[in-house]
C-alpha cells in the first residue's frame, strides 16, 4: 500500500466506484430510475468516467509507470486479513479495463437508441443493471487477489441473470436466465473449491501463489471448471445460446465481449498457477479445440442471427482457451481483446438489423445491404475480422493462437482450429450473404438505417476491429505475457487461405442471397443441432439420473427422516398427554406439589 491516493489508484478507484455509485443511486432513488432518460445519462456519465480513468491507467502503464496496488485487508481473522480488497493496476488489468469500458460505453450508447421503445421504468432498470455490471466487471478486472475476483465474478453472474431475464414477462427469458444462472453457479463450485484449496495451502488468495505441480493441477483444474461454465466451454456451453433471450446490446456486452471473456481473463490473471499445471493445460487445449470446432459446426446451421453469433462466441472462446492451454498466454489474451471488439461490433450490427426488421430470423432478412449500407459495412468488417482475413485484427490474434498450437498433441488441435477457421468464414459468409445480399424477404422490406446513436458505436468498434491488430507488440509489452513477433510462415497462409475458401464456399452455396440451409453436409449438422445433442444428453442425464436419485433421496427423506421426525412428534404428544394431568388448574394441587418439594428437600438435607 503505497501513496494511498496517488494518481493511478485514484483513477482505478474512480473506474470501479463511479459505476457503483451510479447503480446505488439508481437503486435507492426509484423516482429517478423510473423516469428512464435520467437513469441512462447517469449510467453513461459513470461509464465515461470509468473509460477516462481506464485510459489514464493504460497510458500510465504504456509509459514508465510501475504496476501498483492500493489494497486493504478484510475478513480479519486473528488479526490477519484473509483477503485483500482494493485495486491492482498493472498492464493486464489496465488493458482489460480499457477493453471493458470501451465496449461497455459503446453498448450503452447504442442502447440509448436501441432500447428507446421500452417503457421508462424498464429503460431505467436496464441502465441500472448496466451500471451494476460495469462496477462488477471492473471489480473483477482490478481485483488484487482471487477472492475479490470471485466477488466480481459472482456479481457479473448476478447481473447476467438480471439482464438475460430483462424481459421477465417472457417465460422463455425467465427460463434462460435461470438456466444461465444455475449452470454458471454449478461451475462456480469449482471456483469456491479452488479458493478453499488455495487458502488451506497458502493462507492467501494470491494470483502468483507458489504451488507444487500436483496442487497447482488441482487448483488450476478447479478454476478451469469455473472457466468452462463462465466462458461457455463444452459441455457447459448450453446456457450461452439461450442467453440470447436478453436484449441484443446485452448479448454484445456480456455474452460476447466481456463477461464470458472473464473466464479467459481469470486464466490470464492466474497464469503463474496455470504455468505449474501442465495437465490442466492439456485438458484446456482439448476442451478449447473441441469447443471451437463443435460450436462452429453448430453455428453453420443456426437460422437465428443471434444464435449464429452466440455459437461463434463459444467457438472463439474455444480458440482462446486452446491458446492458453497451449501455453500462449499472449495469444489467448490478445485474441480476447480483438474478439471483444469485433464480436461486439457484430452483435451491435445484428442488433441494428434486428431493430430494423423486428426479427431475429435470417429468413426474415435479405437485401439489407441497400437499405442499411452503413450497418451492412460494419457487419461485413466484423465478419472479416472474425474470419481472420489478413489485415484485420482477427488475423493477427488468430495467427498467434494457431502458431502456438503448431505441433501440439499430434497436430490434432491445430487441425481442429484450422477447420474451425474455415467453418467460421463459411458461416459468417452465409449470414452476410443471406442477410445483406439478394432479395429482401418478409419484414426486411420496411427496414431503414439506424440513427447516429447506434451507428456511432458501430463506427468506433469497426475502426478498432480493423486497427487493434497492429498494436500486438505494444500489447505484448504492456501486458508482459510474452514476446510478440509476426511471422509469415505457413500457418497464417493456410489460415488465410482457409478463410477465403470458407467465404468462397459460402458464396457458392448462398451466393445471391439463397437461403439453402438444408443442403449437403449441412443437413447432417442440422440434424445434430435440431436434436440439440447436448441438451438432450443433459436432459437424459437429468431424467434418468437426477430424477431417480432425487426420488430415492425423497423416499429416504419422506419415510426415514420424516419418520424419525414424526416419531419424535408422536412421542412428544404421548408424553404431553400423560404429563398434562399434572397441570390440573386447581391451585391446591400446586400447593401440594410445593409442600412435597419442601419435604423432599428437607428429607434430603437430613439424609445427607
Amino acid at each position, binding site marked *: 500500500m503505497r501513496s494511498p491516493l496517488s494518481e493511478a489508484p485514484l483513477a482505478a478507484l474512480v473506474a470501479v466506484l463511479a459505476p457503483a455509485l451510479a447503480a446505488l443511486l439508481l437503486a435507492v432513488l426509484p423516482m429517478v430510475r423510473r423516469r428512464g432518460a435520467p437513469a441512462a445519462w447517469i449510467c453513461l456519465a459513470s461509464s465515461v468516467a470509468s473509460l477516462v480513468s481506464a485510459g489514464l491507467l493504460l497510458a500510465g502503464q504504456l509509459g514508465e509507470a510501475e504496476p501498483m496496488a492500493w489494497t486493504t485487508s478484510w475478513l480479519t481473522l486473528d488479526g490477519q486479513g484473509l483477503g485483500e480488497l482494493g485495486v491492482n493496476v498493472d498492464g493486464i488489468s489496465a488493458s482489460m479495463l480499457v477493453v471493458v469500458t470501451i465496449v461497455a460505453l459503446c453498448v450503452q450508447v447504442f442502447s440509448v437508441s436501441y432500447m428507446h421503445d421500452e417503457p421508462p421504468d424498464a429503460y431505467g432498470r436496464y441502465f441500472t443493471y448496466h451500471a451494476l455490471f460495469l462496477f462488477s466487471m471492473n471489480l473483477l478486472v482490478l481485483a488484487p487477489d482471487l477472492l475479490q475476483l470471485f466477488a466480481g465474478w459472482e456479481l457479473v453472474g448476478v447481473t447476467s441473470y438480471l439482464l438475460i431475464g430483462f424481459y421477465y414477462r417472457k417465460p422463455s427469458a425467465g427460463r434462460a436466465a435461470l438456466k444461465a444462472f444455475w449452470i454458471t453457479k454449478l461451475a462456480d463450485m469449482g471456483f469456491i473449491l479452488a479458493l478453499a484449496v488455495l487458502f488451506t495451502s497458502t493462507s492467501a488468495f494470491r494470483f502468483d501463489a507458489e504451488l507444487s505441480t500436483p496442487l497447482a493441477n488441482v487448483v488450476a483444474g478447479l478454476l478451469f471448471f469455473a472457466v468452462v461454465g463462465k466462458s461457455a466451454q463444452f459441455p457447459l456451453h448450453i446456457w450461452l445460446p439461450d442467453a440470447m433471450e436478453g436484449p441484443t446490446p446485452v448479448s454484445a456486452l456480456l455474452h460476447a465481449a466481456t463477461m464470458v471473456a472473464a473466464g479467459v481473463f481469470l486464466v490470464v490473471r492466474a497464469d503463474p498457477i496455470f504455468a505449474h499445471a501442465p495437465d490442466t493445460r492439456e485438458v484446456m487445449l482439448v476442451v478449447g479445440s473441441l469447443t471451437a470446432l463443435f460450436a462452429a459446426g453448430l453455428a453453420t446451421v443456426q437460422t437465428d442471427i443471434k444464435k449464429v453469433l452466440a455459437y461463434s462466441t463459444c467457438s472463439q472462446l474455444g480458440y482462446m482457451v486452446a491458446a492458453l492451454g497451449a501455453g500462449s498466454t499472449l495469444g489467448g489474451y490478445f485474441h480476447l481483446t480483438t474478439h471483444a471488439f469485433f464480436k461486439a461490433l457484430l452483435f451491435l450490427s445484428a442488433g441494428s438489423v434486428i431493430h430494423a426488421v423486428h426479427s431475429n430470423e435470417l429468413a426474415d432478412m435479405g437485401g439489407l445491404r441497400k437499405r442499411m449500407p452503413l450497418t451492412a459495412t460494419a457487419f461485413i468488417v466484423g465478419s472479416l475480422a472474425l474470419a481472420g482475413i489478413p489485415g484485420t485484427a482477427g488475423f493477427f490474434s488468430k495467427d498467434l493462437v494457431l502458431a502456438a498450437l503448431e505441433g501440439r498433441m499430434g497436430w490434432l488441435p491445430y487441425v481442429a482450429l484450422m477447420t474451425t477457421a474455415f467453418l467460421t468464414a463459411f458461416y459468417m459468409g452465409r449470414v452476410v450473404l443471406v442477410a445483406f445480399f439478394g432479395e429482401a424477404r418478409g419484414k426486411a422490406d420496411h427496414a431503414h438505417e439506424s440513427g447516429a446513436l447506434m451507428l456511432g458505436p458501430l463506427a468506433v468498434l469497426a475502426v478498432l476491429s480493423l486497427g487493434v491488430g497492429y498494436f500486438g507488440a505494444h500489447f505484448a509489452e504492456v501486458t508482459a505475457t510474452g514476446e510478440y513477433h509476426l511471422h509469415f510462415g505457413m500457418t497464417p497462409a493456410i489460415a488465410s487461405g482457409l478463410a477465403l475458401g470458407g467465404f468462397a464456399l459460402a458464396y457458392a452455396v448462398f451466393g445471391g442471397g439463397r437461403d439453402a440451409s438444408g443442403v449437403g453436409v449441412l443437413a447432417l449438422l442440422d440434424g445434430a443441432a435440431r436434436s440439440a445433442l447436448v441438451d438432450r444428453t443433459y436432459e437424459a442425464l437429468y431424467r434418468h439420473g437426477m430424477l431417480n436419485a432425487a426420488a430415492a433421496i425423497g423416499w429416504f427423506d419422506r419415510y426415514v427422516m420424516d419418520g424419525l421426525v414424526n416419531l419424535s412428534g408422536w412421542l412428544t404428544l404421548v408424553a404431553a398427554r400423560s404429563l398434562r394431568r399434572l397441570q390440573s388448574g386447581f391451585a*391446591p394441587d400446586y*400447593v*401440594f406439589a410445593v*409442600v412435597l418439594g*419442601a*419435604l423432599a428437600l*428437607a428429607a434430603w438435607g*437430613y439424609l445427607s
Partner: protein
Amino acid sequence: MITTIGFGLLAALLVGSALYVVRATNLVHSVLGLGVTLSITALLYALLEANFVAGVQVLLYVGGVVTLMIFGVMVTRRHDGIVVRSDSANEVRGLLGGGGIFVLLALSILESDLPSSPVGPAPSTASLASELLGPHVVAFEALSMLLLAAIVGAIVIARRRDFGEPRQDLVTRARAAREALRVEALRAEAEAPSPEPAASDAAEPPRADEALPSTDGSVPAQEASS
C-alpha cells in the same frame, strides 16, 4: 407458673381454634373462628410482652382483615341462606402435607439449641419505634408504597366491569330457554294426539307454564291473563 398455665391454655385454644377454622363447614364460622384465633394470638403476644404488636394485631387483623373477609364472603355469594358451604377435599393429602411439615419443623426445632428464658428485658414500644423509623425506615416507606399499590390494585381488579354478566345469569337464562322449549313440546304433544277439543286437555298448557316462574322469576303474561 401462671405464665406456663396461661401459655398452655392459650396454646390449646390456639390450635383448637385453628383446627376449627380449617374444618368448619360454614365459611362464616371459619372466618369468625379466624378472628378468635387471631385474638388469642394477640393474647399470646401480650404474654410475650409485645403489647404494641398485640394491639396492632387486634386492630389490623381482627378489626380489619377478618372484617374484610366477612365482606368478601358476603359479596361473593347470593344471600339466600345462613350457611356458606365450605367443603374440604383431599383430606389424606392435607394430613400428609400438614403432618409432614409439622414433623419436619418440630424435628428442626427440637434439634436446635434455643434459649429457654429471655436474655434481657423485653423491648419497649419506644425502641420498636426507633427501630422502625431508624434503620428500617426505607422498608417502612416501601411498605407504605406496597399498601398503596395493593389498594389501587384491589380496586382496579374488583371494579372491572368488562366481564359481562356472571355466568349464573347465563345459566339461568339457558335453563329458562330450555324450559320454554320443553313447555312448547308439551303443548304440541298435548294438542297433536287429540284432534277433538277436550276439557281435560285444555288444562295441560297452563300447568306446563307454571314451571316458568320458578326458573326465571318472572310471571309470564299469558298466565296472568289465564
